[in-house]
């Protein structure tokens, strides 16, 4: 009996599993009845089914292959926060009539359960909008009718494209996917390399096969396919460099074309070759060779100078002040170096390639470095799109420096933080290339000297002097070099209680080669607390770290920090008359991950003075999820220590 029941259950189960039909329009009552995704109960929506099919079709009248992208998706919406999945924007490249992508077909439906029955509603024309977003892109925007909590929607469309490059295929979304079929079918004439993101936590399986095609003529097609079930959702976290670095995706790189009776045409297949290809682009390599436009100016600038360092600095500052960055990235020039120089504005390539050309002209061994910026992510494949930026590298004996002239406050080896990603590819003049690591090893240091005198009314007055180097200095300059002293003071006063700051002075704020220094006087109320006959205060006063910035209990992805830092505090507190020390915080030291992080706190009394010395150092720039707990604990100890109180007692 029991046996029978379980058989029946098994049959039913098998039926429901196999019974789910993913043909357009075949939405089931079970799908509509589902209240939550049992595998991911917090999902607002789930992609029940998705098919992404890329194929190439030969068109005789156009004499060539066209790429056809067919997409079918069925999405379940559980609640109101999932409603935005019922709106879709299909982006079509639209540069000119012959070079634009077109939407061939589009069908979309909403399904709801009414009285136990599936009711289907079609998306009508008036729910579809054409938007010419700008000169490159056209959007087809649609939103489905009759969306409720529990609705299922289906969208099916086909795009035809004259381009042979295949866009990256996303295999993971911010909501879970139940079933996902991916097909990429390419004719033998186009050779693609395929790659899955190795940094993703989710690793799908790919299958490859070949098959014969006979229409309109005989050729062989390469087929990549993947059938996935229960793809987990990808959810962002604070302090991740770029969440897309961790998303599962299939990347297809066109490496070669080989047509019968024609030369094979090879595209990028290795970083070496990618680099060579880029070097051969006129708007890259040729730009390095032009010099007539600057010769006179540079001759005048460096005349009589023989020191390489001095010459480098002169040229670097000259480019920074002469050509302003227009906020566009790129390793190729847009208007060209000559025009950029003349008009005083350029993209990253125009500015930095010009810098390299000038340095070479002055006899300095300068070379371009191709970069992928943080928001471009970490490329997985040798591809030209893997780079999106170029900077300058000087290789002279004992004098190796990275330079970027797009930012006024950058300097030797101190680059805008957008470029501190992964590694760069140096291209030498002969076209050969090598990798170089871009991770910052040099410490950016700050020292803070804090003098404090506690008055009889328990207000505090004193002086602060600070000094910052490297990246800390660059960021400080970016923030404060162009604002008034008044606004700067407001910033310093903010969140520091009842404080009044005066006599702010800055040194070397506009000289990136020097540490930036500041000094000011302050008056502080409320920092010394009188409770009973005792006084309580933290000797770091308004510099104490008040809260642990790391609040999550666990992490899924690494924390990325731009550069190593060290902070040093030297504090002198003059105690008020009529009081003596009742207790002091204990001296303390701790480390994180052997010595990636160090903290020490030393306090001592010296007559009527308290002296405190605090050192904090963080030499790592990446905190992996499995080290997160220890890292958070390191910070917890720091905060606890810095807020610990000195207790003074009234002398009776």
């Amino acid at each position, binding site marked *: 009996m029991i046996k029978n029941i379980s058989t029946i259950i098994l049959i039913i189960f098998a039926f429901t599993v196999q019974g789910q039909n993913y043909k357009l329009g075949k939405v089931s009552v079970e799908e509509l009845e589902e209240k939550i995704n049992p595998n991911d109960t917090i999902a607002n929506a789930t992609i029940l089914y998705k098919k992404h099919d890329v194929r190439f079709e030969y068109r005789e009248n156009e004499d060539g292959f066209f790429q056809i992208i067919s997409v079918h998706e069925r999405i379940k919406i559980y609640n109101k926060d999932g409603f935005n999945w019922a709106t879709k924007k299909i982006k079509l490249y639209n540069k000119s009539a012959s070079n634009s992508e077109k939407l061939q077909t589009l069908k979309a439906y909403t399904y709801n359960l009414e009285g136990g029955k599936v009711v289907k509603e079609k998306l009508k024309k008036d729910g579809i909008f054409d938007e010419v977003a700008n000169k490159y892109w056209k*959007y087809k925007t649609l939103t489905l009718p009759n969306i409720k909590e529990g609705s299922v929607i289906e969208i099916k469309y086909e795009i035809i494209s004259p381009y042979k490059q295949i866009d990256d295929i996303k295999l993971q979304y911010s909501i879970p996917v139940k079933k996902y079929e991916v097909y990429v079918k390419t004719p033998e004439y186009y050779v693609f390399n395929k790659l899955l993101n190795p940094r993703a936590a989710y690793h799908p399986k790919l299958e490859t096969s070949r098959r014969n095609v006979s229409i309109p003529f005989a050729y062989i097609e390469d087929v990549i396919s993947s059938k996935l079930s229960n793809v987990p959702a990808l959810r962002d976290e604070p302090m991740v460099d770029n969440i897309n670095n961790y998303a599962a995706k299939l990347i297809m790189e066109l490496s070669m074309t080989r047509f019968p009776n024609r030369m094979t045409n090879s595209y990028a297949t290795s970083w070496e070759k990618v680099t060579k290809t880029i070097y051969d682009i006129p708007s890259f390599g040729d730009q390095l060779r032009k010099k007539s436009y600057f010769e006179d100016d540079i001759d005048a600038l460096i005349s009589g100078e023989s020191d390489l360092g001095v010459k480098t600095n002169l040229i670097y500052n000259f480019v920074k002040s002469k050509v302003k960055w227009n906020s566009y990235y790129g390793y190729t020039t847009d208007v060209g170096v000559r025009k950029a120089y003349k008009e005083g504005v350029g993209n990253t390539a125009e500015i930095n390639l010009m810098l390299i050309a000038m340095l070479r002209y002055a006899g300095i061994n300068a070379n371009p470095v191709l970069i992928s910026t943080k928001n471009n992510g970490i490329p997985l494949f040798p591809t030209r799109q893997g780079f999106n930026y170029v900077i300058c590298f000087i290789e002279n004996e004992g004098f190796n420096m990275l330079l970027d002239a797009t930012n006024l406050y950058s300097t030797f080896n101190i680059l805008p933080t957008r470029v501190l990603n992964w590694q760069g590819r140096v291209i030498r003049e002969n076209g050969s290339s090598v990798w170089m690591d871009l991770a910052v090893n040099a410490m950016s240091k700050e020292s803070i000297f804090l003098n404090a005198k506690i008055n009889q009314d328990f207000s505090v007055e004193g002086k602060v002097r600070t000094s910052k180097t490297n990246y800390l200095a660059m960021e400080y300059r970016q923030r404060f070099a162009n604002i008034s002293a008044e606004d700067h003071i407001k910033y310093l006063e903010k969140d520091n*209680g009842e404080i*009044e700051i005066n006599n702010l002075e800055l040194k070397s704020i506009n000289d990136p080669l020097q540490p930036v220094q500041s000094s000011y006087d302050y008056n502080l109320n409320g920092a010394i607390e009188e409770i009973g006959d005792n006084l309580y205060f933290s000797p770091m006063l308004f510099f104490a770290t008040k809260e642990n910035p790391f609040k999550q209990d666990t992490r899924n992805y690494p924390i990325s920090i731009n550069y190593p830092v060290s902070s040093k505090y030297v504090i002198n507190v003059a105690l008020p008359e009529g009081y003596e020390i009742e207790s002091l*915080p204990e001296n303390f030291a701790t480390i994180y991950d052997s010595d990636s992080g160090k903290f020490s706190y030393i306090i001592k009394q010296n007559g009527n003075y308290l002296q405190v010395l605090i050192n904090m150092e963080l030499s790592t720039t990446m905190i992996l999820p499995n080290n997160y707990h220890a890292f958070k604990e390191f910070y917890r100890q720091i905060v606890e220590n810095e807020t610990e109180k000195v207790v003074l007692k009234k002398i009776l």
Partner: protein
Amino acid sequence: MLKGIIPLFFCLLFVTYSEAQSEDLFLVHTIPSELMVKANAVVRYDYRSLDISGLRNLNEKYTRIITVFNKQGERNIDAQISYDQSRTVKKLSAIIYNKYGKEIEKFRKSDFEDVSSVSDNSLYDDDRIKYLDYTATEYPFTVKFTYEINSINTAYLPSWNPLEGYYISTQLSKFEIAYNDEVGIKKKEYHLDGYEITNNSIEGLLSYEAKNVIAIKPEAYSPMFKDFAPHLKVTPKKFYYEGYVGYSDEWGNLGKWMYDQLLKDRTQLSQSTKIEIKAMVEGVDDPIEKAKIVYKYVQDRTRYISVQEGIGGIQPIAASRVDEVKYGDCKGLTNYTKALMDVVGVESNYSRVYASSSNTVDIDKEFVTFLGMTNHVILNIPNGEEDIWLECTSQTNPFGYIANFTDDRDVLIITPEGGKIVHTKIYKTEENLQVVKAAIDLDVEGTIQAKVNIKSEGYQYALREGYQNSPLKDQELHYKNEWDYVNNLKVDDISYDNNKDQIIFTESINLSAKNYASKSGTRLLFQPNVLNRVTYIPTRYKKRALDFEIERGFTDTDEFTINIDPSLEIEAMPKSVSISNMFGSYSMHIEKVDEHTLKYYRTRILNKGYYSNEDYNSYRAFVAEIVKHDKSKIVLISKP
């Protein structure tokens, strides 16, 4: 009569325009020095000349010369123009000059970027924008921007703002509207006193001019810019808009026009929907109860999608259409709700409002303008003394809840008889209540465990209900950020009760924090205000220039029972505090129930109010005082 005016009028236009050509305006050193103080940019010359030669014929010529001193000032260049099928750009150009007045770059119409104005929260909008994409190569520089447009719509006329914003001053600004008798013009001046502004208007020509308006800086808690900055509003007496002709002489007529032309026939519904909604209210007599059923019906079945096309910019899509697709924008959803209210016999009115959460923005009752210069639509249900207002774009708001978006302001309700101005619900200081109760256990290590209960009402309801549907991880993080001064906070349990009938949101949280009380030798310093601390003191100004405003008042009460580990002894406790002034009040006291049990009481009330700049320092001192008492400590000592 008319004959006499025309030559004079042309003459005026000619004189002003030739002034614009003055080379001096492209030079930086000719800027009066008082205009450079606090300024990121100076408007050298701003001349807008409108010519309404007929009901469907608006021509606008605009010339703007602006000198920009730094990166921040670039946003004031404002070289952009929006257009659509009814509004065509005839001329458009920009020229950039360096500080010596030398031309360095020229942009023709085709050099401007052309993009759609679909925003993040709209699906479609047929407006397009042409804008200047220019990268400065040096500062200062000057931009001369000119355009000419023709529009068949005459309903909206631009305002004149001789002080455009913060950090920008104006050397010369002119504003002219030539109009014919058929159209007519009304205007209203705001805060023009104290500026070098002249009104040179004559019949058939409105003409204003401002000189040397110096820049100001923003300050914390400032009132809305429009509440103190000089500006002029204008509106045609008779207008044309996308096929319709209307009058803006008084609210009654304007409303009547809107009702008859734009709303009347938009409330048809299918028979089946009528039957469905009627069945749902069967047996219910009270109109408010019926309205609640209808509101829930709409909330459960629709969602907000914004599509703006042609007349659709001001006319709702038909109720039958919303009924079919189950989405709409504020106009469509409000009109749909009204259609359903009609079916069940509940009176309701489509109402135009300026929605804004940070400030309460009124329609100017005294000055009738097209749609009252509003940006949103809500539904009004007349209800004797206090009308009910429905936000029809929300799927989650409690019935009648409009706090933080459309509360406490004058709005235009549109009835079949005409329009009228009505004030929306005010959420009063005593209604905007938050009550925190907690039982806190403190152990010998200084670690605390607490059971917390937070009840929020009135406008505070809206501040707190937002996190209830987010993932647990985000909810935990939200509390860690809210109580960021409590280090090592661990959230052990969260539960919510959202009482939409009474509009009370209740949060129950169990939490703990290791070593919350800090050690100092043999002492433990314990801050009894664990859960509702003010930590931020408003910005200090050497001399406060602007008045300041608290837009919404509120009341917070806190009551914590603190159980202290028996091995600890209380050495010192903060004294009771009670402060009261025009801004509000604050009181705190600690009651010793027994040797190990304390009760902490705190009340903080902040009043709604508009205050003079002179009072800012005392407001700041009041907050500083609260900050000080909120971190006061109890000293505990281990028993020997």
